[in-house]
């Protein structure tokens, strides 16, 4: 079986017995090629691995992705090619597993300790600046810190620090907060709205803030 329509894929995968086994085997072979290409070309951290190790890793990811695909067949909207839809499961499986292997050591304490350090560093980067401009920047940072500390819940602060200030992945911070990435997104969205709302209420637009930092860092 090659070159199937979306409907043919769905029917075969929903079928039981030989037809399903054949479709699964074909999809597995195809996604294994996809996974190998993805790991080889898009994951530089794996460049030191031998191709046999890469293949073994790809096989594991594809096996997990196939289980998710089968569990989620009913969510396929039919608004893309079926195979395009399946790529997402392979990418997410690989990205998720590789992120977990990479971080491993982040703790909530680390996030909390660095809560406001990032903005303080920016506030202190005023050496050699015109004194008035330096004062304006410091005032702004004091205002931002006050908003973060007074308006945001602890989880919102940790989320902002982890994802926005430290550039950590959503998954890493979500794991530390013992929640899903979907919920973390909502936490961050609420936090961003609060910060934006307070800044706008103070008649501070993006241009006003960015103008303070155009001169020199």
């Amino acid at each position, binding site marked *: 079986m090659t070159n199937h329509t979306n409907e043919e894929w769905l029917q075969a995968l929903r079928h039981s017995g030989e037809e399903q086994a054949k479709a699964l085997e074909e999809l597995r072979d*195809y996604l294994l090629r996809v996974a190998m290409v993805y790991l080889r070309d898009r994951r530089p951290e794996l460049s030191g691995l031998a191709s046999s190790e890469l293949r073994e890793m790809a096989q594991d990811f594809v096996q997990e992705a196939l289980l998710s695909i089968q569990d989620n067949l009913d969510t396929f909207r039919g608004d893309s090619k079926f195979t395009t839809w399946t790529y997402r499961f392979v990418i997410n499986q690989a990205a998720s597993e590789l992120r977990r292997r990479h971080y491993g050591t982040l703790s909530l304490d680390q996030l909390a300790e660095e809560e406001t350090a990032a903005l303080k560093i920016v506030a202190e980067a005023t050496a050699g600046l015109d004194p008035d401009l330096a004062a304006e920047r410091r005032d702004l940072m004091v205002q931002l810190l006050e908003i973060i500390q007074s308006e945001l819940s602890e989880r919102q602060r940790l989320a902002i620090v982890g994802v926005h200030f430290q550039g950590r992945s959503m998954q890493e911070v979500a794991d530390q907060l013992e929640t899903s990435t979907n919920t973390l997104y909502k936490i961050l969205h609420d936090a961003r709205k609060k910060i934006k709302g307070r800044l706008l209420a103070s008649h501070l637009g993006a241009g006003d803030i960015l103008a303070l930092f155009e001169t020199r860092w």
Partner: protein
Amino acid sequence: MKPKEFTNWINRIYATKDKELDCDTAQSLLSAYVEVELNGAAMHPLAAEIESHLLQCPDCTETYQGLRYLLKLEASGELAPADKEAAPAQSRPPESELTPVATP
């Protein structure tokens, strides 16, 4: 935080919309979005909402970039297609199918 990261952060704060797609919804739309984007003939009906989500979400952006890379390879014949169906025409899904982030 580096200076450039600070200005990027400010831009992200001000780009915040009252309602945004959550990750699950954005993920469910990504495969069609990338197909339409690479096809170039039309714009995905939820392109603005998806792009707004991608601006804010590093993990979904990683998925998007991976998908885009693989589909470009597929289009150039470096990944043999396993299906014969062209990307279906896009129409905006009903609002009831969308789950924008609900905020109090």
